[in-house]
């Protein structure tokens, strides 16, 4: 269930990237991948490190997805900016 929560929160936060200039690598789809992968991977690592099982969820599980999503989005954004700046 924790995985579903991470995934849901990742997608939820991705919706707000429409307010950010579209400089993500592969645009809105790249941002989607960044948000989902970031929230899921980060959430799983922290959940594992804290010794909680994947079936064990509470409000902190949902909040845990936020930093992961932001990291994922930042990475994709950085990749996009770098790709734009590189000459063809």
């Amino acid at each position, binding site marked *: *269930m924790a995985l579903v929560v991470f*995934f*849901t929160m990742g997608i939820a936060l991705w*919706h707000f990237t*429409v307010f950010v200039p579209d400089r993500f690598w*592969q645009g809105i*789809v790249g941002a989607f991948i960044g948000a989902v992968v970031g929230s899921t991977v980060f959430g799983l690592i922290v959940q594992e490190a804290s010794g909680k099982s994947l079936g064990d969820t509470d409000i*902190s599980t949902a909040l845990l997805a936020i930093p992961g999503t932001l990291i994922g989005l930042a990475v994709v954004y950085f990749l996009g900016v770098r790709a734009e700046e590189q000459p063809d």
Partner: protein
Amino acid sequence: MGTRRRHLFVLLFVLGLVAVSGLVIATKETKLGLDLQGGLELVYEGQPTGTASDVSGQDVDNAISIIEQRINKLGVSEPEVARLGEDRITVSLPGVTDAERAAEQVGTTAKLFFYDWEPSLIGPQFLIGGRPGQAPPEKVIKASEERWKAAGRNPEKPLNAQLFSGGAYPTAYDAALLAAEQEPIENCETCSVSKPRYYLFEKQPPHELVAGPEFTRKDLYISPTGEKRPKNGIVVKVPTGTIVVSEYPTDPETGQLDETAEPAWFVLKDQPALSGDEITDPEQTYEPQTNLPVVAFQFTDEGREAFAEVTRKIAERGQARAIGPVGVEEAEGLSGRFVVILDNEIKSAPLINFAQNPGGIDGRTGAQIGGGFNNIDDAQELATTLQIGALPINLKLISESQVSATLGSQALDDGIKAGLVGLALVIIFLLLYYRFLGLIASIALGAYGVIFFALINLIPITLTLPGIAGLVLTIGVAADSNIVIFERIKEEVRAGRSMSSAISAGYKRGISTIIDANVVTLLTAFILFVLATAGVKGFAFTLGVGTIVSLLTAVIFTQSLLGTMSRSRVLRSPSVLGASGPGKRWHYDFMGASRWFFSISGVILIVGGLALATKQLNLGIDFESGTRMKVALVDLTNEEGVRSTLEEAGISGEEVQQVSDPNLGDNVFQIQSHELGPGEVKDAKAALAAEYRIDNEAFESTSVGPTFGQQVARSALSALIFSLLVICGYVALRFDPKFAIPVLIAIFHDILITAGVYSLTGKEVSSGTVAAFLTILGYSIYDTIIVFDRIRENVPRMPRAAFSQIVNRSMSEVLTRSLATSFSTLLGVFSLMVFGGATLQDFAFAMLVGIASGTYSSIFIASPVLTAWKEREPGFVRRRLRIAEIEGGRVPAFADDIEMAKLGRDDEAETGTPRRTEAPAVEAAPGPVATVEKTDESGNGSGILAEGDGDGASTSSERRQRNAERRARRQARRKHGRNR
């Protein structure tokens, strides 16, 4: 064949089909599932035992064969035994009410034993059949003859004579009386049965066997089908150490046991030489020298010793009967046998010829039974018998579902009512909205209903509650196909086409959309059918067949119907089709507003995510395992009363909830607990019946074991993943790979919103919910496909427009159609929710959420994502830049035809090509402000008309458009070259 003739031919064909279907409906009965007629469904899982490490397909097939044999003895009408997945077996027993007895009789492991025949026979039977080579005493033969005649059986009749000569008794009653006279062997460890067994016979001669063998007297009176058994019958107790077995005669023509003939009975000392557990690898093979069929098998170590011992004894006895050395043929008449007995029935009696095997059969290299088989089938049958007896699997009951006939019949009534109301609502909507076209669609829906129902009877499809849900959904699918085409026809009529031309163009253009949408629905149904559990299969199959039939009636039939009438007076006026006036055209900046809809979705998903984290999902017993019972009581009570009654019956830890049922009233209780065995369910029912009386046998129960729950969850997940992959693959192939990703994102959006809704509302998630939702996903992509189809069509028509403008234009053209299709489906769902009863209401809720989120996401998620992604393509980036240049830095929501024309002139000036006059624009599009307006469709300018829809009137316009497109392409190529 001319068009008119073709239309007439199709009409006659469909009408003929309807007539034949009517005949089928009148003559063939509908096969109802257990949930609609009442009965018991058992799901067994084969689990390995002994030496085997896994369960093979052959093991499961053998288990099915023995279950079928046992069910035949239960007297259940139309039972069904089917394999489910690799190691599961479902058994459907209509009319069976006693789950415990049925489960006991159907699912116990088959018992196979080998007996040394002659010494095992008792009394007169031994004197006749137990001394090969010796004539039985005259007195004994005479007594046996009288016994057979008294039983009304002629001992000289060929089939009877076989049994009579072996010393068999003509009736089970005679044999049981002989057995009852034997001394019991207390605590017998070498016997096949360690307890005495009881038989129930009719009181009147010839004392037919009513029931048995059973371990208790009480069990004799409990029939799994609920049939009454005579209380005044004769009960015979057979003591431990003695068994009664039956034998069928052998058909002289086939050489196989004739199980249609009347059997005879033997009484044996219960001292088996070895059991089926000691046999391994039985198989039908061929004797290498003679090439005749034989049955070969191996033994376990203990089995080998026991087999060597018994065959040695049989051979020694034979030798003792012979006077001096004898040949093989002469020895045959003096040799003894061992018999193979499965479930108290003699299956084979091979001879141990002492001349061939003077020291018996060692068994180190296995053993084989041969020489007596008339054909290969005979040998195969014995091999199967041995395989069943040596079955290395235990059948574990993992799910049990029981529905009373009363509740089944109510569910059927509810389902029929929901289906009819759904159909009526859809017809009313079509008539009101599409007028004459609606009438045509209604006729097609009527034809669809008749043909589909006939197919259900003819195939036959077992109609279940989920199947009815699928049926109601297909009514929506059938209506949708008409809506897609009718909207197209209306567009063509408004564009000025003649009626016949509009009908022809409407069908031509609508058909690809319909095929795309229906293929997706079919793919989802197919995946569900392959991967889902039994109940859901009915839903998927009904949906699949319904979708195919709807293509025939909603597309081919209506086309011919309209085609035939296209030149008639009725169709002269566009108002008859609801196509008078300019029509409604949405003029809304969908792409501009999408960021706000994205925000709404984001907020909904955050709420859903928080709910999932804190409340999780209320997974039903399908996933979590447990038992659920529903019972309507006569005497008024409350939840506490029911709970304490159950506790007194030894059932604790259950949740009791009082529910209201429109058919059963308010004194209805739903009880949910950990998994209960069939016996515990029976105890619970009996306790409630004794305390409060059960209303007209209205009781149903479902028990699901943990392994079955895991299987359901796994199959649901597999179905979801496969559906996603297949749908995306199809969209990528039919449209453009870039179109598949937004579809995928929209599906994720729909799934998570639905999960959030279920978490927030606390509604139970069952396997049916998942199936309904998966199907709706496929169906919801219908909307996305309609929009994407129009985008695909508009891209070449609008060669200078920004992608957002193309999408806005496409959305404005198809939104009415999308809303109408969703609405017609919602009418069916609404009918299910109101009239469908509890199970169908669960389906309907999942469908409601699915349709709502699916329609929303196709408009506000899939299309904006596609736009944002496509606008990054260099070609569309250049278009945006050019439009922004002209528009003072902004890109209008809709392609302004004047500005487009200006862009064309700029291009021409740049290339030096003389300018040609573009079609005059009637109306300038508004800016990016979100507004909804009525506009004249034709006023949207050259974009649509330039494609060549104008009945020849727009030929020059088409030419101009093509030239403009060519110029744009040349220009783009040159610019691209410069950039590089």
